């Protein structure tokens, strides 16, 4: 392993890794951006129901070119199709699903996460505007919240921090973090490093992570 060059995961690889953690039959809400890609990598033999907060459950992939229907879009305003068994509902019912803890997994983008699982992902620090959309309800309401993000900012600053400095989305919500170099659980006693990208050591990940990571042994390499 000392000979493997450090190889951070690409966006598609992070998405593929996340999809491995969707249990068969899970109801999953995917946020805009990298989370949406996870739909492309569902492991064979698993049936996943996708929920979209604008009022869809059980939607499928994008339609063929020329068959797009402006009345059939997901929360990211992308054209989708419906699978057999899918259904429509209004937004109050849709958020009864998220707020009421009926959605098994939400995958959200992240700007910052802290060791208590607090999440910031809706507004850049100091920005005049930001868009909450469904983020606060979904982060607070899903049974498990997975965050998908690069491990550091463009400037190399940690996004996994001791205290959030960006506007908060929800407290104590994140259960697992997937980055380009690690998979980290948010446990009752803080962050537990589970897996690392090829060529990375636990120490490498710790070096770009502000809070202390714990791990029982040298963590596994992410299977991609």
């Amino acid at each position, binding site marked *: 392993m000392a000979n493997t060059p450090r190889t951070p995961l690409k966006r598609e690889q992070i998405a593929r890794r996340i999809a491995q953690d969707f249990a*068969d*039959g899970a109801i999953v809400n995917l946020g805009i951006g990298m989370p949406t890609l996870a739909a492309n990598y569902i492991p064979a033999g698993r049936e996943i*129901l996708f929920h979209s907060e604008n009022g869809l459950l059980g939607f499928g992939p994008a339609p063929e070119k020329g068959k797009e229907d402006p009345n059939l879009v997901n929360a990211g305003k992308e054209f989708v199709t419906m699978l057999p068994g899918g*259904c*429509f509902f209004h937004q109050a*019912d849709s958020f*009864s*699903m998220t707020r*009421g803890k009926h959605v098994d997994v939400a995958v959200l983008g992240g700007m910052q996460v802290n060791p208590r699982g607090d999440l910031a992902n809706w507004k850049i620090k100091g920005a005049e505007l930001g868009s909450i959309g469904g983020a606060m309800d979904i982060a607070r309401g899903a049974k498990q919240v997975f965050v998908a993000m690069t491990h550091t900012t463009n400037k190399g600053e940690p996004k996994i921090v001791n205290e959030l400095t960006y506007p908060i989305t929800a407290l104590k919500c994140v259960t697992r973090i997937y980055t380009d170099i690690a998979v980290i659980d948010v446990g009752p006693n803080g962050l537990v490093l589970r897996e690392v990208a090829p060529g990375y050591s636990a120490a490498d990940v710790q070096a770009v992570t502000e809070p202390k990571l714990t791990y029982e042994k040298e963590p596994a390499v992410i299977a991609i």
Partner: protein
Amino acid sequence: MLNKIVNSLATAVADVRDGATILVGGFGGAGVPEGLITALLRQGTKDLTLIHNNAGRDETSIAPLIKHDRVAKLICTFPEAKTAYIFRDKFLAGKIKLELVPQGTLAERIRAGGSGIEGFYTPTGVGTEVAEGKDRREINGVMCILEYGLRADFAFVRARLGDRWGNLVYNQASRNFNPMMAMAGKIAIAEVDDVVELGGLNPEHVVTPGIFVQRVVKTENLNG
């Protein structure tokens, strides 16, 4: 594969334990999950708290459970009725407790429970004995009382058709409390006239999206 179909009414209710709280759909004789109730009576569980609009209807609906002393407490809106003589006798004998709730407040409390809304302010009941001991608040010039969301260990609902994802449609006025109860039961069990293939329900016509339902079972004539 997500398959919520259960083979028999008996199997569907096998894990209901003593002391469980159960939402039971129906209004008068319409939309009552008679088969699930009969199966539960045979299963033998006791010390139940039931939430149901009525207090039993002659020897049907929840009356058999009350008659056989399985019910410790009833939360309902309409306990005083000629047809609720079994409940009346047990109540006057001090064998069953009663919490009386206005019908719209009951419907809303159940929906709130299923939607992750912990409480709400309603004008219904202000100035009446229903308001006794409850927090009051004037909002927009309207005096209100605080009511709380209501959840239960199980929901027994009655529907016309269901599929293996748990999607349901109802039969006319038998819809009544069933959709909200499906939302608020940790385990919602739907007794249906028929199970249909996935895709057999039009996505525009589904009334209860499958996310709210954990088990679907075809009705059986247990008294035949």
